[in-house]
């Protein structure tokens, strides 16, 4: 067990043995007190429980998809069921897991602690966001029980409005509602960061995780209303036959795609910006150095958030959009990749002259850097119009966005969960199991999704229930990888669950990490800080070893 006691730094940390008193977990017991809590830390836990449930529900749909694709013939499910399975997978993973994942769990828990605040600016609104999230989730689950929806998570018109015979309205209402949860969370975080920073916590002393929450909140607030509006228009066309998107009614189907991607491309940055913030925290704590190029890291977060709004048309190079529009969207898509490249180089440079330990959080962070790099570079292929013509709507695109959203965002999310686990729960987890899970996750992920790049280049279109036999070998490889990946996602459920009850008690700062959240006990008291902290230095002020 030496690895647990050693901490990330490799130096032994003090080891408390008695149960702490007056923590946010123990004060006010009872289910009702949890469901009516205004405490940002408890709300984070509420989100974490719900999000974990959605993740495994969406994962089950993914497992069915991969199982079906082992053979070219459609032998496991009917075409209709397959279409419903990938739609359910997409809707649940995008809106009920990826978008809320880091902001509502780690963000809710850490944001006030990191800036030295008592809570978020609007605690009641925070609880309301969770209820909106749950209500939206219930709609989606009801839709599944009622028979599902078969439009794909993209709801392309006029298929979704005039042709699909499935539960489009129910799903759209679910997503519409969960959108307001995003908007309110974004609003809450922006006001919190502007008004509740403690003395000395200037903008350029904010940890990068806080900056990433700021960037993501802006995107959530400005992009999500467009999604809400678009979904409302779908419902109007479907219910009342208003001609908005269907050309038979005088509408324009490309209008829908513009609206949809105006939200959904920034939504990708909603998923990846928080991941970048988390990874910056994990790497600095494991390397025991200041982040390399803090200013550039801040500018690149904000650059991605802003330019991310101007690239939506790169989803539409073959849609019939004007060639000149495609040229403009292409160059902007290359430009938005620059800040991402800068971040990768800066993380790498942070390792230079560091004092590096390889605990589970660092393994997750390094896994993130590798997979994000592969996902980002293949994004450039898709930004290049002439290549995108061939690659779009094939498995190349499927592989690309899974490298970013699953390889990137989920790795970072799990890395963050491990890193702050002692703070949140007051317990340590099994370091050996955690490292094992991180490593097989990296390999399982690559085995699942790398073959999909090749499938895409060979021309296999996405959303195919059946496929020509020449694509089978790569599909079998991908499905084999997905079993390893599934195992690596189930493992943390086991050893983290075990640690909740049997894990050794964690000290206030088991990793000897910098940051205000590590100055309070683990788990923190309800009121966070006994005395308002005063900040005198920038983040990651690790002393020279």
């Amino acid at each position, binding site marked *: 067990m030496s690895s647990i006691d050693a901490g990330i730094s490799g130096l032994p940390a003090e080891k408390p043995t008695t149960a702490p008193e007056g923590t946010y977990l123990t004060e006010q017991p009872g289910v009702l007190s949890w469901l009516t809590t205004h405490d940002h830390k408890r709300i984070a836990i509420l989100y974490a429980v719900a999000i974990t449930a959605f993740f495994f529900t969406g994962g089950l749909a993914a497992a069915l998809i991969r199982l079906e694709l082992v053979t070219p013939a459609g032998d496991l499910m009917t*075409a209709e069921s397959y279409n419903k399975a990938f739609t359910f997978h997409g809707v649940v993973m995008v809106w009920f897991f990826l978008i809320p994942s880091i902001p509502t769990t780690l963000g809710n828990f850490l944001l006030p602690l990191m800036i030295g605040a008592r809570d978020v600016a609007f605690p009641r609104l925070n609880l309301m966001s969770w209820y909106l999230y749950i209500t939206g989730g219930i709609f989606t689950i009801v839709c599944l029980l009622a028979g599902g929806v078969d439009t794909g998570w993209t709801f392309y018109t*006029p298929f979704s409005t005039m*042709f699909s015979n499935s539960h489009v309205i129910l799903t759209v209402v679910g997503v519409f509602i969960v959108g307001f949860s995003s908007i309110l969370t974004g609003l809450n975080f922006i006001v919190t960061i502007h008004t509740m920073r403690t003395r000395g916590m200037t903008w350029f002393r904010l940890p990068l995780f806080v900056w990433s929450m700021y960037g993501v909140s802006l995107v959530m607030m400005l992009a999500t209303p467009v999604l809400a509006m678009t979904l409302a228009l779908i419902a109007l066309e479907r219910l009342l036959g208003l001609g908005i998107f269907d050309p038979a009614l005088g509408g324009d189907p490309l209008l829908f795609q513009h609206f949809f991607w105006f939200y959904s491309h920034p939504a990708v940055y909603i998923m990846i910006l928080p991941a970048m913030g988390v990874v910056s925290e994990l790497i600095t704590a494991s390397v025991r150095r200041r982040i390399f190029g803090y200013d550039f890291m801040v500018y690149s977060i904000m650059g991605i958030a802003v330019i991310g709004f101007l690239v939506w048309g790169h989803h539409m190079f073959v849609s019939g959009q004007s060639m000149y529009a495609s040229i403009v969207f292409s160059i902007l898509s290359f430009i938005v990749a620059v800040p991402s490249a800068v971040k990768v180089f800066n993380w790498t440079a942070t*390792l*230079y002259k560091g004092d590096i330990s390889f605990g589970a959080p660092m393994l997750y962070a390094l896994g993130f*850097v590798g997979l994000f790099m592969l996902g980002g570079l293949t994004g450039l292929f898709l930004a290049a119009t002439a290549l995108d013509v061939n690659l779009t709507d094939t498995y190349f695109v499927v592989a690309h966005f899974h490298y970013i959203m699953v390889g990137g965002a989920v790795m970072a999310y799990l890395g963050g969960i491990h890193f702050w686990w002692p703070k949140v729960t007051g317990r340590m987890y099994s370091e050996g199991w955690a490292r094992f899970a991180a490593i097989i996750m990296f390999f399982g992920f690559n085995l699942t999704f790398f073959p999909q790049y090749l499938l895409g280049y060979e*021309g296999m279109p996405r959303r195919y229930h*059946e496929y020509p036999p020449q694509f089978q070998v790569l599909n079998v490889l991908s499905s084999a990888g997905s079993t390893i990946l599934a195992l690596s996602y189930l493992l943390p459920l086991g050893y983290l669950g075990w640690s909740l009850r049997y894990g050794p008690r964690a000290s206030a700062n088991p990793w000897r990490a910098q940051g205000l959240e590590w100055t309070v006990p683990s788990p923190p008291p309800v009121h966070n800080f006994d005395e308002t902290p005063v900040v005198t230095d920038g983040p990651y002020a690790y002393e020279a070893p």
Partner: protein
Amino acid sequence: MMSLPQASSVASRVDTLFYAMLGLSAIVVIGVFTVIVWFATKYRHGSKADRTRADSKSPGLEMTWTLLPFGLFIVIFAWSIALFADMSRAPENATSVYVVAKQWMWTVQHEGGQRELNTLHVPLHQPTRLVMTSQDVIHSFYVPAFRVKQDVLPGRFTQLWFEPTQTGTFDLFCAEFCGTDHSRMIGSVVVMVPADYSHWLNEHVGPGLSERGADLFRHLGCSGCHDPHSGIHAPLLEGLYGRTVPLQDGTWVRVDDRYIHDSILLPAKEVAAGYEPIMPTYSGRIGEEDVLALIAYLKVIGGASHEQH
């Protein structure tokens, strides 16, 4: 690993760009990976490496790795756009073939009246331009061996062109999700040497597209109003194609495929100035294949003169 044929004039150019980017990406990935492994080994906890004077910023270095990728991206962008422009514009001498997509099949009409289902015959080394529309939802015409793809939309004509460079039969896929049997909306493109192709055309000849349009023009009752001898006040269609005409709302519109298409299916949308909006809609009464035949007919009676305008 199977390898996809390069069966069109743009295929090898697309692949060259792809492999150039792949090479560049490999250099970046291997470079960053090497540096990470090197630092991770040298500066691992407990190692005796020199850790003095560790700067946490270097504006020069950071500007370098901001501007260097930016410059590279501009080069790739320019390369890609040059190719994309060629892929987007069909050559003047391309032969037009008309494609209508519907759940879940491809119907093809050639100028000479040949009609096909889920198959497209084309000649080797001659550019073919597809004029495509959809009867229902959005589909996408995708031939991986040609490296071309174009969405096919209802209520709009989109175009795609290619020049085959290999004979053979190549996969045609629908690439845009279009409902239950999306994955069965597949077909093939058959590339033949010109002699065989002419032979095939002669074997499958039917009434020409514009002749079929002329028949439809009479049978559907269009001529009842649009004939010069008709007592009803409706626009004359002779010599109309390609001209720019005024609309009731004061704007002007060019009489092209799209305008004729919409005037047949959505006649109230853009009413010509000086006429009552009395034309009934043919939406739901005729399919997109027939609309294409009518357009071909109106081109014949309206063509030739428009070059002078």
